[in-house]
């Protein structure tokens, strides 16, 4: 009897320890030193080896340099991209795969019952992410060159997956208890959708509509339709537009949308931005152009990028790769260098839809009822019941209930028109750039690009520099799509595209430099309408101010400039804040610190106390000006950008929003600034104690680089650093430069670069987070750009075809 009880207990324990319970991995499997997580602890460098890889035509060598950067030497294009897929999967398989699950709305398949995850999956499906990924991959696969590359890449990933034993699965597979799926070009397309969501998936149409309804057109004009005077557009005033623009006519009707609430719009992603610039030979010490680029994203581990060199006949490109996509995204070859920043074009618009009845089979458009299209989405849930969701499409795109809580008697529906849904082949642009040898080939490569729109900066060995604001842009009437549009009226539709040759661009300007920092794409003289929402002027203006005054530029100067922490925002408002501050109302400690603020140089440096204080002071002031009016509306409204607010406050110290409408008193600027100062002091004292080292911006900046799958313990917390969203070094709160690159063109092209993280995606490897120190201190690595396969290496792989 006892033996039976004991035996049953044993079986239960074995079963329980082999099963994932909630978020707890199967304990026996997970802790097993021979196959569980312990086997992911790297105890020595990988060894050089020869491997048989199915599908290779010729031998491929992968040389890992002293920082473990892989350099792939292949003898043909097919083998090059097959090897890239293999090498990437070897380092980053989990990162590649989890992002495709996210983009496909399939996270619940891995995580199980979790309302937050389920909601994300449902939203992802409703926004047409998998639907558009399928459309895009169809187009890419029709282009034989792209199809060959995408297929070879998939083959390489699958060659790696096929030889993996469960004990060799990356750590996260063991934590979440799942197995890798075969890769396919569709997965690469899903990753592209993820990038589109991050970079072009924001919209404030609904919030602008309500803001217009509450505060009126004057308010919209004042804050959203007026450029700050300090703004310098990416394509400057000096550019002459040598074409005639044919624009669609603005409709006479002034459509007023119903006020819809609560739809889950993706907020414009404020953490995303970037810098890039190029200077020509007249401004450099060497007489050759120098190009610099640093894309800003939400930082993660494994790091977003991986350095790699691709070498084969027709190719010799070094730079960073996007995990799951073939080619180099930001980098250089023996002839040219290129980098991108995000373009703030309005490429997501919302249309109010009138359905005939609850079946949603027909909607009213241009005087008649038009049939909708439908698509069924099945959302599988691990250990739960599958959710079936029916998507409804108008000709604009997917239609969503804008008031899902049924707070209104009559449902309001919004259809989404988004560039992310547009079929196209943006991969060929990057492959083209990887191979381009001069300006014309760079422009040729840009032509096929759809989205997310980017500012592509360029420099070549021939001495050319250029920047193209590049993407497929809808040809709009002025301010089209600023607010929610009329889905019944064709005049509100996107009616054709801006011809590629008319996209804003400039080559070899007299100034000797080109630059971009997500600010307005082109000067007001540009004859098309692109958007009403861009990054504030500060970063772009700072870059231009520095470049204008620089001569005999060296690569080191450019690297230092990427680490520039100067805040033009602080420079523009601090003198006024100190003037408005009523010293008499402050305690003696608060007064003491105000002299520190007086002596500040506006550098957002890690070891200064003022930046953190300024951050809170401005935030409190901004809130105290707008919050009362905005909250009184009871709706979610669009807030103005800080650069325009600064300008208005300086010009109109009696701006009516300064009064706090919840009090009888009429507040003054002085009162608000002083109250905000005291609040900021209070906040700093509460979180960081009395004035001292803990007030340093390096701590206040709170840089947590999270794990890509949000698994605790696998990120890097509290990375001490300077920076700010308005500084060139845009590091803050876990966002910032995800790769800093400087390239000096010339007969001997040279590159420098650094990113937070490492080559390996394995949290148990010393190379998982090995570059972060250099990244935060601005010590770029000199990049090993080989002309031919080197003899020395850390270790190398020899890949042979399986024949």
């Amino acid at each position: 009897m006892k033996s039976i009880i004991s035996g049953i207990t044993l079986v239960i324990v074995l079963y329980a320890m082999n099963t994932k319970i909630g978020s707890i991995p199967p304990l026996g499997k997970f802790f097993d030193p021979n196959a569980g997580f312990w086997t992911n602890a790297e105890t020595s460098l990988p060894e050089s080896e020869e491997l048989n890889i199915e599908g290779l035509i010729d031998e491929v060598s992968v040389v890992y340099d002293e920082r473990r950067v892989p350099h792939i030497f292949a003898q043909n294009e097919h083998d090059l991209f097959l090897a890239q897929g293999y090498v990437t999967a070897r380092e980053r398989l989990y990162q590649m795969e989890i992002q495709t699950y996210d983009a496909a709305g399939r996270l619940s398949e891995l995580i199980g019952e979790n309302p937050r995850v389920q909601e994300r999956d449902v939203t992802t499906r409703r926004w047409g992410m998998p639907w558009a990924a399928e459309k895009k991959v169809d187009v890419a696969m029709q282009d034989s060159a792209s199809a060959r590359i995408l297929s070879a890449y998939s083959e390489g990933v699958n060659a790696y997956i096929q030889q993996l034993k469960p004990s060799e699965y990356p750590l996260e597979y063991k934590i979440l208890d799942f197995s890798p799926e075969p890769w396919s070009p569709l997965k690469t397309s899903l990753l592209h959708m993820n990038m589109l969501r991050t970079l072009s998936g924001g919209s404030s149409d609904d919030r602008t509509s309500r803001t217009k309804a509450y505060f009126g057109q004057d308010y919209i004009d004042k804050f959203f339709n007026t450029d700050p005077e300090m703004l310098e557009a990416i394509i400057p005033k000096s550019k002459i537009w040598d074409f005639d623009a044919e624009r669609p006519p603005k409709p006479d009707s002034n459509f007023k949308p119903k006020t819809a609430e609560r739809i889950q719009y993706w907020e414009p992603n404020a953490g995303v931005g970037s810098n890039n610039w190029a200077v020509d030979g007249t401004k450099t010490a060497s007489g050759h152009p120098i190009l610099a680029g640093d894309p800003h994203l939400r930082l993660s581990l494994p790091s977003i990028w991986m350095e790699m060199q691709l070498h084969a006949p027709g190719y010799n490109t070094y730079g960073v790769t996007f995990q799951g996509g073939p080619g180099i995204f930001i980098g250089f070859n023996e002839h040219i260098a290129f980098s991108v920043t995000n373009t703030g074009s309005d490429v997501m618009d919302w249309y109010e839809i009138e359905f005939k009845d609850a079946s949603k089979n027909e909607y009213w458009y241009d005087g008649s009822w038009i049939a909708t299209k439908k698509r069924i989405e099945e959302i599988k849930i691990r250990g739960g019941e599958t959710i079936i969701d029916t998507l409804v499409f108008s000709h604009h795109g997917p239609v969503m209930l804008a008031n899902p809580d049924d707070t209104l008697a009559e449902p309001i529906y919004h259809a989404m028109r988004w560039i992310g849904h547009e079929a196209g082949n943006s991969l060929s642009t990057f492959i083209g750039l990887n191979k381009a040898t001069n300006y014309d080939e760079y422009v040729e490569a840009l032509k096929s690009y759809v989205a997310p729109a980017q500012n592509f900066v360029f420099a070549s060995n021939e001495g050319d520099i250029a920047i193209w604001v590049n993407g497929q842009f809808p040809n709009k009437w002025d301010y089209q799509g600023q607010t929610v549009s009329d889905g019944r009226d064709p005049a509100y539709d996107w009616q054709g595209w801006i011809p590629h040759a008319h996209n804003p661009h400039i080559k070899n300007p007299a100034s000797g430099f080109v630059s971009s920092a997500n600010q307005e794409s082109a000067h007001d003289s540009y004859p098309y309408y692109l958007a009403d929402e861009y990054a504030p002027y500060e970063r772009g203006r700072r870059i231009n101010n520095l470049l204008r005054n620089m001569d005999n530029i060296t690569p080191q100067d450019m690297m230092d400039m990427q680490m520039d922490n100067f805040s033009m925002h602080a420079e523009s408002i601090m003198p006024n804040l100190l003037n408005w501050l009523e010293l008499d109302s402050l305690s003696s400690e608060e007064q003491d610190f105000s002299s520190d603020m007086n002596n500040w140089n506006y550098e957002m440096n890690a070891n200064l106390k003022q930046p953190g204080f300024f951050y809170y002071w401005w935030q409190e002031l901004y809130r105290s000006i707008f919050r009362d009016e905005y909250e009184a509306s009871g709706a979610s409204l669009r807030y103005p950008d800080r650069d325009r607010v600064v300008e208005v406050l300086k010009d109109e110290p009696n701006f009516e929003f300064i009064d706090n409408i919840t009090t009888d008193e009429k507040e003054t600027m002085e009162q608000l600034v002083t109250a905000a100062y005291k609040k900021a002091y209070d906040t700093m004292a509460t979180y960081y104690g009395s004035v001292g080292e803990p007030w340093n911006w390096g701590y206040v900046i709170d840089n947590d680089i999270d794990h890509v799958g949000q698994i605790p313990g696998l990120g890097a917390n509290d990375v001490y650093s300077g920076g700010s969203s308005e500084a060139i070094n845009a590091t803050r709160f876990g966002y910032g430069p995800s790769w800093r690159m400087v390239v000096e063109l010339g007969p001997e092209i040279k590159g420098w670069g650094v990113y937070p993280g490492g080559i390996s995606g394995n949290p148990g490897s010393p190379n998982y987070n090995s570059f972060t120190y250099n990244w935060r201190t601005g010590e770029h690595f000199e990049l090993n750009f080989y002309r031919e396969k080197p003899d020395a290496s850390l270790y190398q792989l020899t890949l042979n075809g399986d024949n």
Partner: protein
Amino acid sequence: MMLALVILIGAFALNIFLPWWSIALPGLIFGYSFKQQAVPSFLWGFFGVFLLWGGQALYVHIANEGILSTRIAEMLGVGSPLIVVLITGVLGGLVSGLATLTGSLATKKKRTFR
């Protein structure tokens, strides 16, 4: 003592090419054949695989300079990577102890009561 040693060696050999639950097999077999009392059977069984899994984990922890065990400790919220090593040993030990106990109880009929 001998019981722990043979279980350790058996579990080590099986665990190399069989899944983790194979560490229960030596306990069942040797627990039965050693014919010891329930409590010592459990303890020796526990001790054998506690040493094996704990020892293997400790070796990896040291060779990896604690990179991974520190992250796992943070993930599990247990404070120290050495606790992760300890948990590994205890989990293995529990399974083996229970298996050895089961093996020993299966022989009970042959024992005489005093």
